[in-house]
């Protein structure tokens, strides 16, 4: 038990350091930006007509004049105390904005994550078990095509087909336009999330399918599968008993590693469908030079990604007893 605790605390410490690095890197990048937040948000024409006092006030609001180090340390101090600052665009606490947006995004991403994982694993196992046959070729072609297709274009095409031509599904947003918040039901939300969730599900399938296929093909050539064949086990039982158990471990790691990819996809997909999620907030924050919000989103999303990797590491030990014992011995 002790080694597990040491392992876990080491991982957590590394994660905290990485998060610190992420926030610093994101902050420095935004500081290095030559784009003037006043120009982008107020506009040249409005700036020209303002008095010096108004300009000073605005510069103060957007924090243009403070030295970067002082700003970063100030941000960090507040962050540790649980305050992520105030979004300059939305004029709400960053934590609140992220919380609201994450609610919309999270189950979109969760749905896509589960679907793409199950689909990728199934396709990979099918292709690997039938290597060289038609199924394998079809899956490989499908994966190649999928990984070459930009997610946002796929979204546009689905939008044209299902929303414009067939008119089955809404064109965008997460709730019907002009409806007050109280009368929005769960079915409305589901109805609006179908297309974005579907589009997002396609990202991430290719990677996991191809890796699983390779692993599965190796297993099918191993001695224990040969022996199982000689004993007269059916192909179905070989795949389920010997293949799947060995394939599931790398698949779990990959699936948790794909969280970052799913998040990236959600940024694009939310933009296409005007879905008010975290990704759309990130784009708005970036375009509007909203430093606190973008910094907050970057740190939160990085925390989600690192958290995913961390869970994968822990699951490794749970799923595979060999690793547990190996760690105890080492």
């Amino acid at each position, binding site marked *: 038990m002790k080694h597990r605790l040491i392992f876990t605390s080491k991982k957590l410490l590394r994660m905290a350091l*990485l998060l610190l690095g992420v926030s610093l890197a994101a902050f*420095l990048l*935004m500081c290095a930006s030559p784009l003037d937040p006043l120009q982008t948000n107020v506009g040249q024409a409005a700036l020209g007509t303002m008095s010096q006092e108004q300009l000073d006030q605005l510069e103060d609001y957007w924090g243009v004049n403070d030295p970067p180090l002082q700003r970063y340390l100030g941000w960090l101090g507040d962050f540790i105390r649980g305050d992520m600052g105030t979004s300059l665009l939305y004029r709400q606490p960053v934590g609140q904005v992220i919380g609201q947006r994450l609610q919309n995004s999270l189950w979109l991403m969760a749905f896509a994550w589960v679907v793409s994982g199950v689909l990728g694993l199934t396709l990979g196992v099918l292709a690997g078990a039938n290597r060289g046959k038609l199924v394998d070729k079809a899956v490989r072609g499908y994966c190649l095509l999928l990984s070459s297709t*930009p997610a946002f274009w796929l979204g546009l095409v689905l*939008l044209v087909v299902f929303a414009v031509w067939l008119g089955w599904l809404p064109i965008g947003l997460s709730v019907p336009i002009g409806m007050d918040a109280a009368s929005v039901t769960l079915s409305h939300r589901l109805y609006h999330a179908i297309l974005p969730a579907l589009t997002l599900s396609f990202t991430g399938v290719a990677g996991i399918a191809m890796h699983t296929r*390779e692993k599965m093909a190796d297993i099918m050539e191993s001695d224990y599968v040969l022996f199982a064949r000689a004993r007269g086990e059916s192909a179905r039982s070989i795949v389920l008993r010997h293949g799947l158990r060995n394939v599931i471990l790398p698949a779990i790691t990959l699936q948790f590693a794909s969280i*970052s990819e799913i998040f990236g996809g959600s*940024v694009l997909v939310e*933009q296409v469908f005007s879905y008010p999620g975290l990704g759309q907030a990130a784009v708005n924050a970036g*375009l509007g030079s909203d430093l606190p919000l973008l910094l907050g989103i970057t740190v939160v999303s990085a925390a989600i990604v690192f958290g995913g990797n961390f869970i994968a590491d822990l699951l490794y030990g749970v799923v595979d007893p060999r690793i547990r014992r190996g760690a105890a011995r080492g």
Partner: protein
Amino acid sequence: MNHWNGRKRAVILLAAALLVLCGVAAAGALAADQAAATDFTRKNLAPSPAFLFGTDWMGRDMLARTLTGLSLSIRIGLLTAAVSALIALCLGTLSATLGGWADGAVSWCIDLVMGIPHILLVMLLSLAFGKGFAGVVAGVALSHWPSLARVIRGEVLQLKGAVYVQTAEKLGVSRLRIARRHLLPHLLPQFFVGLVLQFPHAILHEASITFLGFGLSPEQPAIGVILSESMKYLTTGKWWLAVFPGLSLVGVVLLFAAIGEQLRRMWHPASVHQ
């Protein structure tokens, strides 16, 4: 069919793919003027023999715009993939040969870069370089190296442990000579395949980031710009504005992926059977 072995087929496929890509790039450069020409007598035309991809709301020929956008994408893809592969090569070999704290630092950087969702990182980098052409190139080039750097680091570590390298060291062969005679021949094919396989990613991310508004300016007919502009007109049924440019982008990315695959076939014949 005996003389059509896999190697010859790979060379021919490679040449064909390269030829098509060069053709697209050249056609795009030639069609740049035509892509910007507006003509309000022919606006919003659906695809027809005269305008294969249709025209947009300003009467611009979508075929010319798509070709120009693709050639822009190809050029940016080449540039960014080359830069990021070079970064990967330098950092990968450095961390494997120096070891110790340098190795730790590079690994930490890799974890850091991989921890930020990719699109978000490209966004931040592009902002830091002031968006536009410089922003896209810097954003894509500086964010794509970690996975290749990891591969190269692993490869160099493995080579360093190989018996023939250790023997050469014991025989007093100079480090430079070992690097040139023993390490480089193994590393180069891996590096080039990695480089070519970066193109598809680079092109897709360039298009994505431009689509989001952090990339090339709206005056340039990049694929991302075309697609983001088309969003305003899709709901009125002008599907051709989005479908064909995106489809051709997929085609170009597939060609790059095919080139990478064929190169891999030629350099690592054994890997084809995996």
